[in-house]
């Protein structure tokens, strides 16, 4: 029940309902719980609502940090 899945916003209607592509399945999703969603954004969808925008920039930064951690554990880099 607590599943939340990422999907991409295809269009946003007037009633604040969006059409979201969830791995090929299109669903109507309510945007009442989150601010600033735009077409093409990725959102996390739960029980018919967008919970949050997925932040591509943060996702990328988190990956970089993980790479740095790997480097650290291989002893190839000093902690900064």
């Amino acid at each position: 029940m607590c599943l939340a899945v990422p999907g991409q916003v295809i269009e946003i209607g007037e009633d604040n309902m969006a059409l979201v592509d969830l791995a090929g399945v299109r669903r109507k999703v309510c945007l009442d719980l989150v601010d600033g969603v735009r077409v093409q954004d990725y959102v996390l969808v739960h029980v018919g609502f967008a919970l949050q925008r997925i932040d591509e920039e943060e996702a990328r930064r988190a990956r970089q940090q993980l790479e740095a951690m790997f480097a650290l554990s291989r002893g190839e880099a000093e902690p900064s």
Partner: protein
Amino acid sequence: MKYVDEYRDPEEAQRLLEAIRPLAGEPLRIMEICGGHTHAIYRSGLDQVLPESIRFLHGPGCPVCVTPAVRIDQAIALAKRGCIVATFGDMLRVPGSHESLRQASARGADVRIVYGSLDAVEIARKNPGRDVVFLAVGFETTAPANACAILHARELDLENFSVLGSHVLVPPVLRYLLDAPGTEIDAFIGPGHVSTIVGSQDYAFLPEEYGKPVVIAGFEPLDLLEAVLLLLRQRAEGRCSVEVQYRRAVRPEGSPKARAVLEEVFELQDQDWRGIGRIPRSGLGIRPGFAPFDALSRYQPDLPQDVAEDAGEYICGAVIQGAKAPVECPAFGLGCTPEHPFGPGMVSSEGACAALFRYRQNAREARA
């Protein structure tokens, strides 16, 4: 699928495991709070690939599992009065005191499965002559969506829609577990989806008051491995704090809009947890201003009354609280199965007993 496939990369998992091993000399008992994490751990077999020093204790974070039996009884009573009961699919098999909604529906009760709360509002709009009761459960993740249903129903002037709720909160139950004597939790994996709403600040009390580190994690196998690594690094570096691994979706402040909706519709109340009992100020009740949409106030006194929860016959309570593992239960897989659950841990796929049963039957047999 974007944001899923890249988190299921086996080579990346190997690199994470290699980084974890040298830090995992001393035992670490990690409670994953959320049932979604429990499910992901068993599905991906993380508990088996990690060093033995790392143990997962399954937390109480499955809202279906902790919904008190009397809510099911109340929903069945309302269906017998002629109401349409709409609810999430997971709720159908949950045993009430005498029967489940599925059994009641086989006997003619009008029970309908909805995917989301607005579907329940839609049923009410299309059936103006019938009362529609939405049996709504959830943690901070789902509660805003359920609150939104009430706001939509008010906007549509629907007089035939109400919510029979069981809404529970994460921080109070963690305090309850940590205050209990003999707690064995060293660290927490924090609930990713709850945190998209409430943010990371809600958990500051865990390191500050209890000295327990927390990493808020996503739900893919790599997310969880990285969370374990971050917890081990905190220990190795002598730190203890709240960290967010699930940064693509969790902001420190959460979602202010969703929090505002929660605040508008709900207020704090004492709450009964199945398998645990009553915990003060651990749940959300519908504010008196929305009483016409609150099934509990609307249909009193015709409903079965709330009663104190008992922990169940077997070790269900201990399992829900992470104190015992499902395999320690004599009924596990022998009588108690997802088809015929005896207790809360077996009723939802996010319950610890059900997740273990689904993914580990063969492995258990193989090891035996």
